[in-house]
């Protein structure tokens, strides 16, 4: 069996080697297809995972807030469920803001393996400087826990999250806001909350420019101090949860919401519009890429088909010698596979080179040198190889079948 295969492969390889130009074209087609597949998919997958990573990291994977998706049902509706009573136009009672029983919610979030929950209180204050009012959303956090849940620490240009604990009345604001206020590290800004409490805050950290969410209108404070500034002691209105596996967020959010009633928003829900955009992008990419590979398989089809046409005499001779129809079919399928295989190997090299060129490009964005995010995982190489080999087999199958059906009699008798 192995001897048969090596013999047929031997015959196939001779056929290929004799027809250098055809072989070159077919191999080149596959190689270009594979090379560009690798470069394009590295770009697409790389930028996508970079983008998704940012979507995931920009905020905790799940945010539990003190909102309800819909108001608590009216007692009458609860009592007569199923349509006997319908109520319109009633006024929804204002629930007391803040997560009730938040310690329990936090405990059950922390009970999920690998998950960390960070309680926080957000509210609005006004910074009053020289007759100018700047509204600012403040978030009170526990710095030790928040550092594990969000990537705010990476985004600081100056200072650190720990400074909040060290400095009385410390606040971290965006670099842009600081510039607008004419204040820098260590400077004091007075803040007034909506209930009239005023406090002088000291800037202990500045967030880098270019983070639109944190940049200009959010400040970070110690949870305790935020609670006292906003006049809501012991209250929190948000729990951010970071999970070991971000892709589990949707499920976990569902269970938390079902259990406590508060809105638990996963990052997927938060960025559903982006994710559907990515889906479209993937469909486009794989369509283009399959087209490239399909075109490559045309090259193989032509090469094998010509080889069959050229070798009709040899086919008849081999048949007369006792080679079976299956043998001859296999010879030509092997030719297609060999062309595809060599094409894949050359294409891998081409792809690798293209990726290195792309990866070497440098861009200066926001003062940082950035590289194009590329996905260089072996998975792409395997997909390219698998698709090319499969299309090579498929493309050579039809001519190979034709080869096996050559009638040796006519050729052997009327031979030239």
């Amino acid at each position, binding site marked *: 069996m192995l001897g048969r295969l090596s013999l047929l492969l031997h015959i196939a390889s001779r056929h290929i080697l004799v027809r250098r130009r055809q072989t070159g074209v077919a191999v080149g087609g596959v190689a270009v297809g594979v090379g560009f597949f690798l470069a394009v998919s590295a770009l697409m997958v790389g930028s996508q995972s970079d983008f998704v990573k940012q979507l995931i990291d920009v905020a905790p994977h799940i945010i539990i807030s003190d909102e309800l998706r819909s108001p608590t049902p009216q007692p009458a509706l609860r009592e007569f469920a199923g349509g006997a009573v319908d109520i319109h136009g009633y006024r929804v009672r204002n629930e007391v803001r803040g997560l009730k029983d938040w310690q329990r919610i936090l405990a059950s979030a922390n009970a999920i393996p690998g998950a960390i929950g960070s309680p926080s209180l957000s509210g609005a204050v006004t910074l009053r400087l020289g007759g100018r009012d700047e509204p600012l959303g403040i978030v009170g956090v526990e710095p030790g826990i928040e550092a594990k849940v969000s990537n705010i620490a990476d985004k600081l240009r100056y200072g650190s999250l720990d400074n909040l604990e060290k400095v009385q009345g410390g606040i971290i604001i965006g670099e842009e806001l600081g510039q607008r206020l004419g204040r820098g590290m260590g400077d004091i800004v007075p803040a007034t909350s909506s209930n009239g409490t005023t406090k002088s805050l000291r800037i202990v950290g500045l967030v880098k420019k270019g983070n639109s969410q944190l940049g200009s209108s959010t400040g970070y404070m110690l949870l305790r101090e935020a609670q006292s500034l906003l006049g809501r002691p012991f209250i929190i209105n948000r729990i951010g949860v970071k999970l070991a596996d971000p892709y589990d967020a949707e499920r976990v959010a569902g269970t938390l919401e079902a259990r406590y009633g508060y809105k638990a928003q996963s990052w997927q829900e938060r960025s559903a519009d982006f994710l559907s955009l990515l889906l479209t992008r993937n469909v486009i990419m794989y369509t283009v890429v399959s087209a490239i590979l399909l075109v490559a398989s045309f090259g193989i089809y032509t090469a094998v088909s010509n080889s069959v046409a050229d070798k009709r005499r040899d086919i008849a*001779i081999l*048949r007369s*010698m006792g080679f079976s129809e299956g043998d001859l079919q296999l010879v030509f399928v092997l030719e297609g596979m060999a062309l595809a295989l060599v094409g894949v190997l050359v294409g891998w090299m081409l792809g690798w080179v293209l990726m290195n060129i792309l990866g070497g490009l440098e861009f200066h964005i926001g003062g940082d040198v950035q590289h194009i995010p590329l996905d260089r995982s072996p998975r792409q190489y395997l997909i390219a190889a698998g698709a090319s080999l499969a299309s090579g087999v498929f493309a050579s199958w039809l001519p190979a079948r034709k080869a096996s059906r050559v009638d*040796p009699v006519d050729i052997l008798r009327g031979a030239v």
Partner: protein
Amino acid sequence: MSDPALVARHLRRELEGDPPAVLVADADLAVQPGKFTAIVGPSGCGKSSLLYLLGLIDRPTGGQLLFDGRDLAQASGDERARIRLEHFGFVFQFHFLLPEFTAFENVMLPLRRLGRLSLREAEARANQLLGDVGLAEKGWKLPEKLSGGERQRVAIARALANNPRLVLGDEPTGNLDSVNSARVVELFRDLAHQQGRAVVCVTHDMGIADLADIRVSMLDGRVVEVREQAPRT
């Protein structure tokens, strides 16, 4: 006389059409081992058609073809291929060597396909076969570098590779000069007389037909005469 190597009974080959063209009509023939059989007749009489039917290359539309007591007329393609490989050897008018393979590699093809010998044994046998036809020194050459007579001898060596019981020739001397032609005929006679194989040759050369042990005459697709001839030298 020993058992025939191959028996054709009412063997028939028609081409589709209206009315069907008859290439071979109800041929009866027993091919004897140890004998050199020549099939003769005017061109278009169906002698080559009969040879391809006997050689399992073409399929009859009727009749039986008995080999080892089995009817191979309707056997599967794979089975017929297997029997060709193991027991039949062909020599054609044109040398029909694979052009990309050296003489030695051409002889190796059927040996490797059968796979009964180890690679080393197969190589030894291929060298021996080439030596037997006087080409021991030229095995490494591609067919295009060999003369017509040499190519035909390589083809004969290849036909004998798997030690076939039947050797079939379709005008094997048709393209050779008289010297080479005589050499090939001598080889064929040896294959029958010395090695006990059944040798069947289609020829229009009456000089060759005269050297055969059995002369089969055909006309219009029919076997009209089977005549044993006295041994000659």
